[in-house]
């Protein structure tokens, strides 16, 4: 279990423009510095928001990462829902889904 290092990498990436450039250039090379499981590493390389959410990455860290990847707001919410559908409930942390996955905003329902 290396959720700590998974989040640590995203924390560094989110705040450091040099790391962002390195990640754009060669995702694998940057990740060599972090003690990650294969699943975690692949989720990062693939930008798999749904799996990262289910693995228990803090929501704020993940939200900033999704913004970095250029994912639109409603798509980002859908990706988390799809992650739960595919992999089951959030496995760690406090950013769990409390409802059945329905939207809480008219804007999203009517998009």
């Amino acid at each position: 279990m290396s959720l700590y290092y998974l989040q640590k990498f995203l924390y560094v990436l989110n705040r450091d423009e040099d790391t962002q450039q390195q990640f754009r250039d060669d995702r694998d090379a940057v990740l060599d510095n972090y003690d990650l499981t294969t699943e975690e590493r692949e989720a990062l390389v693939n930008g798999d928001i749904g799996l990262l959410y289910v693995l228990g990455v803090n929501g704020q860290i993940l939200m900033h990462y999704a913004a970095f990847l250029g994912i639109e707001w409603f798509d980002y919410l859908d990706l988390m829902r799809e992650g739960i559908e595919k992999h089951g409930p959030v496995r760690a942390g406090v950013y769990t889904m409390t409802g059945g996955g329905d939207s809480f905003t008219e804007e999203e329902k009517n998009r």
Partner: protein
Amino acid sequence: MSLVYAGVLSHAPGITGRAHLVKDVAKRDEFYAMLDRQRQDIEDSGAEALIVMAAEHFGNFFMNNMPAFCVGIGEKYSGPIEDPDWLKIPKTEIPGAPELGTRLTREIMQTVDTAYAEEWKFDHGIMVPLHFLTPNYDLPIIPVNINCQGPPITPLHRAWAFGEAVRRACDSVPEKIAVVGTGGISHWPATPDSGKINVEWDLEFLDRLVRQDKEALLSYSDEETYRDGGQGGFEIRTYIAAAAAAGGPGELQFYTPDLPIFAVGCTVARFDLNGT
């Protein structure tokens, strides 16, 4: 001179980042107008520096070395860390108040073991308030973080004690200082439940806040807050610290749960600075 203004406001990233998605534009603009009123109140107070007591979201502090409190004493800061197109706030430089911040920190430390930092990258938790309260980024900022994100989080009664220490520190220096606490009340941000708001819980909290009811404010357990207010509800620490710094009753100037696209009950309030 002393503390010249104390208030609270919401800081959710949607407030700027998702402004274009809002359906109820009139309500949004009413909220923005009240934020501008808060800017005017701070300006009218003659404040020479603004302390922003915030709950950051892993912009600077992580579980490798997480302080319960931190005060910024840097010369300058940068932000936002987030993609500027996402937050709709361009990257900019923000002036600090190193000498004043250091004096305040020294006094705060007499009763609260705060960390301090000369480097700080602001995330939406500080950038959204600054976008409204000092849009030209010409007011020196003293950022403060209270750990509301990485459990074990700062106990409520320590947030209160910190607010009291901030007040004592402000009153010990000749400069005029404004302070705002910024966070959410109930909300479930950065989850598929984004937009969920517990209005009843919010109003009860705000009532305790404006009544300056210390005992009631400090009586929430983290389990209750998590159940009723979500993980975002942990940010009540920033409002509690602001109330403690103010010392007097508050006036709720704006609250609405009708902008859920902003993922929080949007709030603006100010406090009297004299206790009863």
